[in-house]
């Protein structure tokens, strides 16, 4: 009985100390972690948006579709609607979810995409994050483009030996564009004065 008490107490004390230590470190690193996440997001947003002079990170239009919130970061230049960026997700990748940041201009053209998170196969599917693949989306008309890979009779070049990854990216873009098209009016007014 006495021995058992000693065992319990030893573990309890060690866990207590560990808990206090972790709480302290967690508190100290919470701000840098949040800042790093914010910086990564801001970098992705500004990389896909046309020129702007507002703060798209805090000018956002949110709409909930089927329980999923869609956030559109609105870029404005001289008070005029310049474009919008949104984050979209596809779970049809080869290695888990693929998250894409998509930028659209006010003229209904794509401005660029960034891969935020992907765990595709290195050397094959991971090429979706490379310029060669991403640059083909620039200036594509969001209405006139057939949003599917060429293998599926669409107009996007898939990566050789990585059709699944390419298809997932295109699907993510397409599902986001659908929402964007439906709410273009509201999005373009977000952040305008008056």
């Amino acid at each position, binding site marked *: 009985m006495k021995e058992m008490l000693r065992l319990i107490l*030893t573990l309890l004390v*060690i866990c207590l100390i560990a808990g206090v230590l972790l709480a302290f470190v967690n508190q100290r690193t919470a701000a840098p972690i949040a800042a790093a996440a914010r910086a990564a997001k801001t970098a992705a947003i500004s990389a896909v948006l046309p020129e702007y002079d507002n703060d798209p990170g805090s000018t956002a239009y949110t709409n909930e579709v089927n329980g999923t919130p869609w956030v559109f970061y609105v870029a404005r230049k001289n008070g005029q609607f310049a474009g919008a960026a949104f984050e979209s997700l596809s779970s049809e990748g080869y290695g888990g979810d693929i998250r894409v940041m998509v930028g659209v201009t006010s003229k209904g053209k794509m401005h660029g995409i960034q891969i935020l998170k992907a765990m595709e196969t290195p*050397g094959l599917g991971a090429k979706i994050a490379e310029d060669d693949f991403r640059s083909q989306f620039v200036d594509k008309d969001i209405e006139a483009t057939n949003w599917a890979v060429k293998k599926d009779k669409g107009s996007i070049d898939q990566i050789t030996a990585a059709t699944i990854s390419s298809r997932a990216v295109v699907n993510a873009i397409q599902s986001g564009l659908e929402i964007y098209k439906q709410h273009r009016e509201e999005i373009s007014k977000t952040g305008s004065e008056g």
Partner: protein
Amino acid sequence: MRFWNEFIKGLWKENPIFRLVLGMCPALAVTTSVENSLGMGVAATFVLVCSNIVISSIRHLIPAKVRIPCFIVVIATFVTIVDLLMNGYANELHKSLGLFIPLIVVNCIILGRAEAFASKHPIFLSIADGLGMGLGFTLGLTILGAFREILGEGSITIWGDIGFQVGGMQPMVLMILAPGGFIALGILLGFMNHLQAMSAKKRGGSFEPPAHLDCRHCTICKFGS
């Protein structure tokens, strides 16, 4: 002198990867590039030294029956601290190492050193052991990583600068994928054994491949007997 001996043994004689063949999960999984290997090695070394210090300093206070849970709590605490610090201050590295940081908790080397060394030796020597084993682990990972990255990518890239490029070859993507880890480890292990056999022959002795490519340092399975 003892400090030096405990330190140096981890680099070659008891190198965790090539001699003890411990910690194979991270050794195969993260060595797709030199950068990842270095990051993983440094993180594991930090945890190893910290856990060795703490476990060595409380070794007389821990009852034998609950020592494993105590070690795990200490190790897990340091791993979480590394995870949080890396997330906040080295975000890019954190992204590429991802899941493998939390997995340091179950890295056999760290628990193995706690059990086989730190719980039986004073702090000073435990630091030497932790540093040596950690550096040996980092060295092993980096060699594996360099081998795989050169063959699989045709170049070595560290923090965005191309450090080394091999011209005129088609990268073997296989070497970066999971099978490449096994192939590279097998080739390097064979090469190391060959080197040892050569040097033993020179000295007139004979070389036997290590019969102890197993968990000889870890006594967990003897626990309770």
